């Protein structure tokens, strides 16, 4: 049996190392944020967020088309994913039971782990290869698939958070199932579902891999989803792996904008919507 003193020392050492690890993870976040701000803030200007990219060697230029492209691609993806995702989440709570529901839940869990690049390949073989051209719509399709598991899981837990007695009470008043769900359950679960949707949008906004062979990128103001389109995170990637110093600076500035958008959505989802859940 070890002595009291030894036990206390070992305990203090263990707790200290655990605290060190937790603090270390937090410090890494600050380091990444710090570097992105330090390297990127110098290139941020109104021009940077409103202009087209300039060719190498021409100073200035921006990522305006990438920001607009991101909004279009993610917007179309959300239009596809929100109805399918929320209704599937609803299926898991008040419709499906037993094996079919477990199977759907399992598929959603599995889908959340499938690498985005594999989903990009799927979008390519479905929408790019048959049509023989890259398109923003194929990127939206890939993004919609990436959003689904997030929306399904959060919708399911938000609806489960609403007490079942509310639903039963509505049914007992003679309301049809449709109205009980649409008018009683969904309004109570609304903020949870919106949180999930915002988190899903934040997730795909930072996603790059599927875009390489779906949206492909563009140097122009491209607004037609049937054509190749610029996208912010793809531009950051292209600039970062280029050999030009001026483009590296642009990559940092683009990363700063990207991180700002993604963090704003995360903060919005978590801080503003959570209190209303209670």
């Amino acid at each position: 049996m070890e002595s009291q003193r030894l036990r206390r020392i070992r305990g203090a050492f263990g707790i200290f190392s655990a605290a060190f690890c937790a603090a270390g993870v937090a410090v890494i976040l600050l380091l990444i944020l710090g570097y992105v701000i330090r390297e990127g803030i110098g290139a941020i200007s109104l021009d940077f967020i409103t202009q087209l990219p300039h060719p190498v060697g021409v100073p200035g230029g921006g990522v305006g088309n990438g920001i607009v492209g991101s909004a279009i691609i993610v917007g179309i993806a959300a239009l596809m994913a929100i109805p399918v995702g929320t209704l599937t989440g609803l299926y898991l709570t008040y419709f499906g039971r037993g094996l079919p529901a477990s199977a759907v839940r399992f598929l959603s869990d599995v889908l959340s782990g499938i690498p985005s690049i594999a989903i990009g390949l799927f979008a390519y073989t479905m929408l790019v290869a048959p049509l023989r051209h890259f398109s923003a719509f194929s990127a939206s399709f890939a993004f919609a698939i990436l959003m689904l598991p997030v929306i399904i899981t959060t919708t399911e837990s938000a609806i489960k958070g609403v007490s079942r007695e509310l639903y039963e009470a509505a049914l007992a008043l003679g309301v049809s199932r449709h109205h009980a769900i649409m008018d009683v359950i969904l309004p109570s679960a609304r903020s949870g579902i919106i949180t999930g949707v915002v988190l899903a949008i934040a997730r795909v906004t930072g996603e790059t891999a599927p875009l390489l062979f779906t949206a492909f990128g563009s140097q122009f103001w491209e607004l037609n989803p049937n054509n190749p389109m610029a996208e912010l995170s793809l531009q950051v990637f292209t600039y970062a792996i280029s050999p030009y110093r001026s483009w590296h600076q642009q990559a940092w500035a683009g990363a700063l904008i990207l991180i700002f958008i993604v963090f704003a959505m995360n903060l919005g989802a978590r801080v503003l919507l959570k209190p209303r859940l209670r």
Partner: protein
Amino acid sequence: MAETEQRNPTGDFGFAPTSAVNADDTILNPRNEPRARPVRAILPRAPRGTGFDLCVYGATGAFVAVVVALFLELLWSSRLSIATFGFSFLWTSEWNPVTNQFGALPFIYGTIVSSGIAILLAGLVGVLAGAFLAEFCPIHFSGPLSFMIELLAAVPSVVYGLWGLFILAPLMHDYIEPFLQRYFGFLPIFSGTIYGVGMLTAGVILAIMIVPTVTAISRDVMAAIPQTQREAIWALGATRWQSFRMVVLPGARAGVFGACILALGRALGETIATTMVIGNRPAIEASLFAPGYSISSVIANEFTEATTQVYLSALIELGLLLFIISVTVNAVARVLLWTIFRPLEG
């Protein structure tokens, strides 16, 4: 009158019982239904086949169809490569688009080694960090710390890649790798030329990317261990650390393991950050300092340049391989996590 109120879509459902009676609702009309049934037995028999139900089932069906199509389409598109190379695709290392010879071994090796490094580092740090948040952290620190770790999970992978390429890789090249070589250079994994970008750097950046997953899930799993178990061992005179080692960690073992495997799945499929720091050279070398290549990186780099059908098909087969690996890994992780959380849901 009753019917119109029923279909009123504005959300203001009728509270008057008379407006709501319909043929299927027997609760309000027990005289027609003499046998009293439990409410739960009645609920699933609510009217079916309405437009709303069709929407729900249709959406679920579409979701299932997409996931199944995802697998079938990858399988179908890689048929040319599967037919040409068979299983030798998995263990030959020649990757030559000119002669149309494709073997995936260097990429499989690179994916496994870089993810292995990542899970070793992130597993250790993440479980300890999760333990700190669940067991030891003063209550007013745990919220902000958890929040920061969740934000770390939200950083886009291209930002990790950028940071890895311009900040971490020079740091590895100038300080960490020379240090390792100086003191552990007798090990083959720490010998050879130092490049900065390579397997080890990729492993470290992947570790940073997956550590929030390990931390958050281990924290939840450990917090799920009943408080009474801790109190029991404290009553026997144990310290807080001992209660963690003897009660919480053994109880949460399967869940912690599940968290690590889930994180491993993320590392295996991560593309952009890996591509930016792994060095992109299809070679199998003992040294972790040497550049390598991963499955996802080769797809990202070469897919738009693939000119022949066999080449394209081989790259899609790599995607199929990633799909199969990640589904397997995730299924194992879910089963492990399920054993922890299931008793709670009752």
